[in-house]
């Protein structure tokens, strides 16, 4: 089942994957690529970032990379980052779980999403 803030995936093929990613990260100021969705995260690191975004009461959308193998690999190349989850703010890659946790703790994440 699709969570209400989950981005529905169009057809993703290797040739259009960059355009697809750019479309996805343009759908909201805050977009999280994760395993599962915000209602049912499928990995502890994804769950942790969801929890932080919920604590900040920020609006965000998610992409479930478990639903598409091409997207799952290509997002890593797009951001030059080897693991998931990955958070994009205002179309820019901000970090994975460790960085988001650190930025939440030092207040810079809130600044970035509200500023």
């Amino acid at each position: 089942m699709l969570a209400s803030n989950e981005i529905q995936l169009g057809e993703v093929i290797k040739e259009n994957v960059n355009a697809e990613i750019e479309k996805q990260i343009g759908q909201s100021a805050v977009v999280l690529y994760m395993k599962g969705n915000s209602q049912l995260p499928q990995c502890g690191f994804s769950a942790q970032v969801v929890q932080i975004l919920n604590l900040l009461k920020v609006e965000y959308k998610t992409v479930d990379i478990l639903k598409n193998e091409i997207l799952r690999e290509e997002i890593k190349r797009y951001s030059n980052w080897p693991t998931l989850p990955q958070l994009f703010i205002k179309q820019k890659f901000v970090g994975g779980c460790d960085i988001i946790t650190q930025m939440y703790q030092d207040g810079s994440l809130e600044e970035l999403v509200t500023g």
Partner: protein
Amino acid sequence: MTKEEFENRIIKALPNAKVEAKDMTGGGDHFSVQVSSDKFKGKTLVEQHQIINQIFEEDFKGTLHALSIQTFIPK
């Protein structure tokens, strides 16, 4: 990969770095690491983590599943 192999890979790439790793599962597939290096100076967090991630680029395609990183710049 053992914890020692893991730490040595980082030290080889970043001489003088202080490295403290933990094998989170005991299976060598999920490490947690703290790295302190002056190579991080002037770099964003993403760039600092990318330096570490790049060392293990090939491993991420195979046996390495997760890597938690904390970076520090020595005072």
